[in-house]
């Protein structure tokens, strides 16, 4: 099964995404700290899709994305930003860093499922 990792400093936000992805044919790993996810990736974990929050302490979503792009295994891994931020300039910044897409919280569960299905090319 494809591996999808969720990174959000809010455990309750992660609980919300878990409820949506429970029924999907994917393996899910959740992290409350981007630097921990990054360390596991550097140690050999290869996710098929990364979904991350933007505003997080220690390492924010953009810093995480930059770091991911510097690791050969995740240089091209599809990455979605899941955030409350809606400013176009932030979206542009994400796009320039190689972000795949932008999801605004609170997310619509059906849309999130569709996005994961689309990116991973899962059977609809």
């Amino acid at each position, binding site marked *: 099964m494809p591996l999808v990792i969720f990174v959000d400093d809010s455990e309750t936000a992660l609980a919300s995404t878990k*409820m949506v992805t429970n029924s999907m044919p994917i393996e899910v790993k959740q992290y409350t700290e981007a630097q921990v996810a990054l360390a596991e990736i550097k140690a050999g974990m290869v996710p098929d899709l990364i979904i991350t929050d933007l505003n997080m302490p220690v390492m924010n979503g953009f810093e995480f994305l930059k770091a991911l792009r510097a690791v050969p295994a995740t240089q091209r891994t599809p990455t979605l930003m899941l955030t409350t931020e809606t400013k176009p300039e932030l979206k542009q910044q994400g796009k320039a860093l190689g972000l795949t897409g932008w999801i605004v919280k*609170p997310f619509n*569960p059906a849309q999130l499922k569709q996005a994961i299905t689309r990116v991973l090319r899962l059977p609809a």
Partner: protein
Amino acid sequence: MMILNSVEELLQHIKEVQLDVIDLSGDSLMKMSGFIEKNGLEVDDDISTALQYQDIITQQLNATIEAIDSMKKSIEIFSHAYKSDEGLANESIEKLKEKLSVTLQDAKDKKSRFSGKTADSSVDDEIEFF
């Protein structure tokens, strides 16, 4: 100066209440999501969105807690300057006003940034792909 002490105490109280609300609402959501998972329940879009409000509430309250901390710090600096040299009081109060104004603007900006779709009806459910 007594009035500033009272303001500081009031701010500290508001901060403590907000931290309690964050803990309680987070605990409430984790219990609900645990129940949903344990019983294999499917949540519909409305319930999923409602559950996500907890995260928005937490972010909003944390932003106001940051504003409270900033205000307290500014008041402390002012109080210290006032005690050291009362002649500097007028200058210090102007600085305090400026700092509180910056704090207010920052807090308002965060209110908007951390609201997501709940405060911006122009944002639809469509996920934006680049």
